[in-house]
């Protein structure tokens, strides 16, 4: 009787970690790729893959403090250019940081939306 109760409790306690494990198998926030840098360079000449990666890090570090992160493909590249400056004051982003985040979201949004 006691053993069955303990088993049920352990199973119940393992349910959420199991769901977390399944969720972890799903894709998260897109990593920038070489093609993204070329696409971004059309708007910001000279931008590199490393700068896009820096934009992703900054997006995770600063934007997740205000809201759940949105995947880049949720909005069009042009929409991101409106959204990021609008949130810059609350997130205390400098103009340089705004542009770094914009580059990452603009480029990966365009690529992932095209892939879909």
């Amino acid at each position, binding site marked *: 009787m006691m053993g069955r109760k303990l088993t049920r*409790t352990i199973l*119940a*306690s393992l349910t*959420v970690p199991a*769901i977390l494990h399944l969720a972890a198998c799903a894709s998260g926030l897109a990593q920038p790729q070489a093609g993204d840098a070329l696409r971004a360079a059309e708007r910001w000449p000279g931008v590199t893959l490393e700068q896009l990666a820096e934009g992703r890090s900054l997006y995770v570090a600063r934007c997740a403090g*205000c809201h*759940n992160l949105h995947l880049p493909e949720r909005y069009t590249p042009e929409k991101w250019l409106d959204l990021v400056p609008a949130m810059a004051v609350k997130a205390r982003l400098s103009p340089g940081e705004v542009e770094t985040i914009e580059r990452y979201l603009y480029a990966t949004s365009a690529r992932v939306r095209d892939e879909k």
Partner: protein
Amino acid sequence: MKTPVPALALNTGLLAGALACLFIPTEATATERHFTYTYGSAVLNRGDVEVEPWTTLRVERSGFYARFDQRLEVEVGLAERLQSSWYLNLTAINQEIEGARASKFEFAGVSSEWKYKLADPVADPFGAALYGELTAGPSESELEAKLILDKHLGALVAAFNLTAEHEWIYESAETEREFVLELDGGLACFLSPALTAGLEIRSHSDWESAEGWGMQHSALFAGPALSYAQPAWWAALTILPQIAAIEGATDGGLVLDGHERVEARLIFGVHLQ
């Protein structure tokens, strides 16, 4: 006459609901809570401040028992990934003792909480954070450590906490010590960009020094969790009936000396800056 719901139909319904959650757009603030016992990994940005009044109602033990635990929390983002909080704790209890009702109200101490975010629940495979809390009060002190895991996938939010606590209780002539192990989990879905509904599960087990460190009580709670968020504030509510005793059952398969039949917790969060 009630018609029993076939288990397969219920499971299919739950699965369909969970899958639907993956495709609902979400628009929430990160610092909101979706569960009141289970923490998420989010921390405030540096310089951000939030105030959170907590109210926990715990009712019915073997006799009449009603208890309000009130906490006032001030939460501050200290650095990238690091957040700290300060709590003021108050407790009011009305209970039946030897046929008569007695009430007491006490200052239950202050707490300091520290939380460090390791990974993000959207950007990384799992969100993760480490959490530590120290409470000092006139009748009890407590040291608590917690591992927080969570994941946001579409409109689905899942979280799991493993918590270990060591308590020093000063109510008798000799200080008693207690060790507590708690597992908390929650699963919720965004029904709209502001509203989530889900389920929260909590298991609480304790071992006491006065009893030779034998397990004294272990109980399992589960119930609904709701949260609602706006840009400047949020609220979260959980109602947790005790559903099973693992150790120390007293009445009807439940632990009703060390735990209550029902707990409910409401937390408001207000962003100050």
